[in-house]
């Protein structure tokens, strides 16, 4: 009945197409990631995608929804991929499976499925893992400490054995936090320099993907630009107060998942705000929280918690950031 009414023409776009473009945009970042941290990344990605598709299939069947219509929308694959690339490349398979199940079953479908989830599914999965398995979630390999595919597969299947423990390293944010906790001043950066360099390049990979998404009009500038500028400004203020205790702003932007967060995490439309002003408020909020959690909180990385917290505020933000309707200003 509906197709008997105007408009009779439609732009050829679909949710699937949107998700496909997001996946394409992730490729540069993922390639650099693999280069620095090895094939484990790909194992993680495959495991996450397979778990996502299987669990989504089962849940769709249980909910009596059309598997064909919903599984092809690609949203489960995107959420699983974002989770997988946030997890260290030397994590065992069951970490990925548990995280993905959290993402798809709990954060997505228990909240009503596509379009209804209040929280960013990938970040819910990540937060669950970080709280439950902090040791595994913060253990990263030394960049370009090449392990063979075989060794990666071994780690993926059986977990990290003690004898290879020597090659892991703390992230810069983690290292500094620990040192400050121990009362030391951070002057020697050599212990994490290579890691910092690697994340910088990976970040640039995500930046390229983000620019692609912006060019394709999948995302607007509001969220990423506001996030990056806000984080830069806050970090600058603290850094100018005390450059020894606080890291310089560029480190904050180029380390951890800042750029992934800017272009791929907070741009999740479902759990984010819809108005231009709302996007600016949201991104500012995430940036402030990320900084506070990183510097003053109990976890080395605060993106997941910051995003989840700001997701709670979205209905409020949307309500009070409505743009002026034509002729009503």
């Amino acid at each position: 009945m509906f197709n008997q009414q105007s408009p009779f023409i439609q732009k050829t776009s679909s949710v699937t197409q949107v998700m496909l473009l997001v996946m394409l945009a992730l490729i540069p970042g993922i390639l650099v990631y693999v280069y620095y941290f090895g094939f484990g990344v790909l194992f993680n990605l495959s495991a996450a995608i397979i778990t996502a598709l299987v669990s989504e299939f089962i849940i769709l069947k249980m909910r009596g929804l059309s598997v064909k219509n919903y599984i092809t929308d690609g949203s489960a694959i995107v959420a699983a991929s974002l989770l997988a690339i946030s997890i260290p490349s030397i994590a065992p398979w069951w970490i990925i499976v548990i995280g993905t199940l959290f993402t798809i079953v709990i954060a997505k479908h228990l909240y009503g499925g596509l379009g209804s989830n209040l929280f960013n599914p990938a970040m819910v999965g990540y937060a669950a893992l970080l709280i439950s398995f902090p040791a595994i979630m913060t253990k990263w390999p030394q960049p370009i400490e090449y392990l063979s595919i075989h060794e990666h597969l071994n780690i993926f299947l059986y977990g990290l054995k003690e004898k290879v423990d020597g090659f892991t390293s703390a992230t810069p944010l983690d290292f500094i936090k620990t040192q400050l906790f121990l009362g030391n001043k951070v002057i020697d950066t050599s212990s994490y320099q290579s890691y910092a360099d690697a994340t910088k390049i990976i970040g640039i990979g995500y930046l390229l993907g983000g620019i692609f998404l912006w060019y394709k009009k999948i995302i607007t500038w509001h969220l990423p630009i506001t996030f990056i500028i806000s984080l830069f400004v806050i970090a600058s203020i603290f850094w100018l107060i005390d450059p020894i205790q606080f890291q310089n702003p560029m480190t904050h932007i180029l380390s951890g998942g800042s750029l992934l967060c800017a272009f791929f995490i907070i741009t999740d439309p479902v759990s984010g705000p819809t108005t231009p002003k709302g996007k600016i408020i949201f991104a500012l909020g995430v940036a402030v929280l990320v900084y506070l959690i990183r510097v003053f909180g109990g976890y080395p990385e605060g993106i997941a918690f910051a995003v989840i917290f700001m997701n709670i505020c979205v209905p409020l933000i949307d309500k009070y950031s409505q743009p002026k309707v034509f002729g009503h200003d």
Partner: protein
Amino acid sequence: MKIIENIFKFNGGVKAQTRKSISTKVGIQKIGIPKYLKIPLRQHIGNLPKLKVKEGDVVLKGQLIAEADGSVSAAIHAPTSGKIKSIEKILLPHPSGLPDYGVIIESDMKDKWIKKIPINWAKIGVEATIKALQNSGIVGLGGAAFPSHLKMGSKATKINTLIVNAAECEPYITCDDMVMRERSEDLINGIELVESLLGAKNTIIGIEDNKPEALSQLQFHTKSHKNISIKVVPTIYPSGDAKRLIFLINGIKIPKGKRSSEYGIQMFNVATIIAIYRYISFGEPSLSRITTISGNITKPQNYEVLFGTPLKALINQSGGQKIKNDNFIMGGPMMGFKLPSIDVPVTKAMNCVLGAEPEMIEDKKEPLPCIRCAKCAEACPVSLQPQELYWFSKSDQFEKAQEYKLFDCIECGCCSYVCPSNIPLVQFYRYAKSELISEFRAQEEADVARERNEFRIMRLERERQERAERNAKRRAQSSKEEKSKLIDEKRAAISAAMDRIKEYEKKK
């Protein structure tokens, strides 16, 4: 003449494929006079006009067959000469598919004109001219069919600027484009005339940049006209929407519920201006229009068609549908509607008929849930939040939808056009609006009923009080003497009656 470059860009809009060139390859063609013309009496917004002819009457081309009834109404004329065959209910090109009164003329094929009487407006004055215009039958030919004289007669507001809507933003439609290419001289003469009647100081023609041929014609014919300027606006649907076009041109945002005349602006469509010119300068009332037939059609083009001509004649002359599916759309693909039947006549509002392309009518994909991507908000030319309106409409929270300015929605279809989840958004808004309107009506009726009831209770109470007062007054007035007198009288009457009974029994 000057071309103004700067425009004020409104939010959103869509760049749809215009598909206009398919119907502009040949000039405007005429459709021959059909044997029978079915002329609906209501071809405009407003009252049904008063019938002036009866069955069997012989009419001439241009003769009045129905007169405007009240100010919000328009006259109807015989499009050709012939005999009134019958006056009956006929099918109309309307989404409802309901029949309405119409006059059926059997053409005598002579096409004989009634005596044309041009109006010397300078002599009889503006007011008399506007009054005369009511019997011209001219309505907005852009598709809205609003009686044109109503847009001239507002004495309360001073009109400074006449804006000529030559944007024609809907895909496929080219009737205005072709009119400008072929009849620019009439248009410019009409502009001078309408500008004078309105008392406006200047005129701006707003035209989309996808009509270079029409633009060069306009430029050529307006060379010596200092009061007329042309503003080329980008091809973004819906630039031809009156309020969007005014904003593009003047930067004035006219809100819902206000008229442009309150801002000193009046807008007419190009074809309407020519119709006014032809009526006043030549005495020719509104008998025909240019209609685009396009889309899934063998020979898409523009025709000059007499009102009342069967739509089928137009379709047949264009070679019918390329891919046969017997579905036709009146108006453009963004805001038009599917014709419930093609057994309908061409009317004043019929600017375009589209043979439906298969993809226009095929079952659309099952909509997916809204992912709040806000593509619709980015496309909305009214800066609404369609995703919120959708949510409220879907969950029957109509008051919330109203709060989010549901009634500002112009149903242009941009949101539905861009939605990646294929949600028929506009349909949800139409539903919410109709629910709210029936709610308002029910509320109004309830209010009237409550008022009546309250009045009745008040009246009964008042009457009761009045009666009590009257009785009290009467009681107070009668003194003791009067009372005993009354009692004596009654006693006397009773004893008299008793005497009569005794006498009656004695007689027995």
